[in-house]
């Protein structure tokens, strides 16, 4: 890959780091956010210059559509609806990771008949798994906060054993997807399982605890971006994803402490029960 592109990615990574650092202080937070936006612009431009000329028009059309939707939603919402907006955007980011990874798998295994090596294969299944949970989990969180889904904790018997079963099934599907690349069915099963798990892990959590869950899902979307970086062998995705993944976990922990909850109970997705009795 071109050295200038790599250098641009490095500058983008530094801007993300400085941006997050500045968001620790009220007086500097807005500048920090703008710096990180500039970093993103640099990363996008550095990526766009290396694509085929014939693909440029499609890419620009998609970016314009996405920007229009993003800006419209961002300026239309009330200030009180901010957490649910974050959840909605976060879900889209997770789904984007899923789409990129399936795209890469499909290109190599179905369209070009390549063998996907085991490292790339593991990265692909991880990215799909984490991204899928992030997508449906965020959609449920958004639905609960905006009143489109019942905001109460929805609890039914055998919830944890069912989640565990689906988790084990996901691992089996992942292994099969990496081993038998000629048949895409295992990858599609894995995608479906992760989407289902996202729903099931968030519905037992009550509406009042949603901000903590959204913070956790935000961390997941960072990890999904990070694993996508391993799929594409791309440093800036890994750095940005790792920053978001790690800072998201810490932020979730800080928010948990403020609400007297433990991070483990959030991770297991069962703390709605304690909140309704408290």
């Amino acid at each position, binding site marked *: 890959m071109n050295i200038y592109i790599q250098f641009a990615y490095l500058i983008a990574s530094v801007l993300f780091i400085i941006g997050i650092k500045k968001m620790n202080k009220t007086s500097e937070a807005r500048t920090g*956010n703008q710096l*990180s936006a500039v970093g*993103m612009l640099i990363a996008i431009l550095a990526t766009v210059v290396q694509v085929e000329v*014939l693909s440029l028009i499609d890419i620009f059309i998609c970016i314009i559509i996405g920007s229009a939707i*993003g800006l419209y939603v961002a300026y239309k919402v009330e200030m009180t609806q901010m957490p649910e907006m*974050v959840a909605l955007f976060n879900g889209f980011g997770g789904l984007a990771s899923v789409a990129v990874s399936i795209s890469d798998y499909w290109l190599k295994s179905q369209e070009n008949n390549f063998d996907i090596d085991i490292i790339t294969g593991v990265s692909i299944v991880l990215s799909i798994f984490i991204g899928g949970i992030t997508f449906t989990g965020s959609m449920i969180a958004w639905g609960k906060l905006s009143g489109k889904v019942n905001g109460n904790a929805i609890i039914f018997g055998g919830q944890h054993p069912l989640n565990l079963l689906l988790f084990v099934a996901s691992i089996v599907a992942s292994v099969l997807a990496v081993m038998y690349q000629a048949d895409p069915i295992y990858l599609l099963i894995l995608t479906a399982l992760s989407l289902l798990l996202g729903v099931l892990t968030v519905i037992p959590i009550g509406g009042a605890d949603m901000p903590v869950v959204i913070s956790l899902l935000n961390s997941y979307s*960072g990890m999904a971006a990070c694993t*996508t970086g391993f799929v594409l062998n791309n440093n800036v995705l890994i750095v940005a994803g790792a920053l978001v993944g790690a800072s998201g976990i810490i932020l979730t922990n800080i928010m948990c402490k403020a609400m007297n909850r433990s991070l483990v109970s959030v991770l297991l997705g069962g703390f709605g029960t304690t909140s309704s009795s408290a």
Partner: protein
Amino acid sequence: MNLEALILLLYVLVLGSYLGFELIAKVPPTLHTPLMSGSNAISGITIVGAILASNELGYTHVSKWLGMLAIILATINVVGGYAVTDRMLKMFKKK
């Protein structure tokens, strides 16, 4: 991908994660939501992967269509995320 490349990428992952842990250790409660929103926008970096994935010629390919879908989704994440965060932080200054 060979093992050598993997090790280098793992270095990037480990150092980046540690940085993420350290960077926000002292964030005041009022900035929790903006920070969550701002870092959410950063996770839209998947857009870079989406652009690379859609860099395929021909429209009949599944991978191309998925890449283009990913660009739209990731752009909503990036643009919407930064815009919403900026709106939130603008409110802060007035107070």
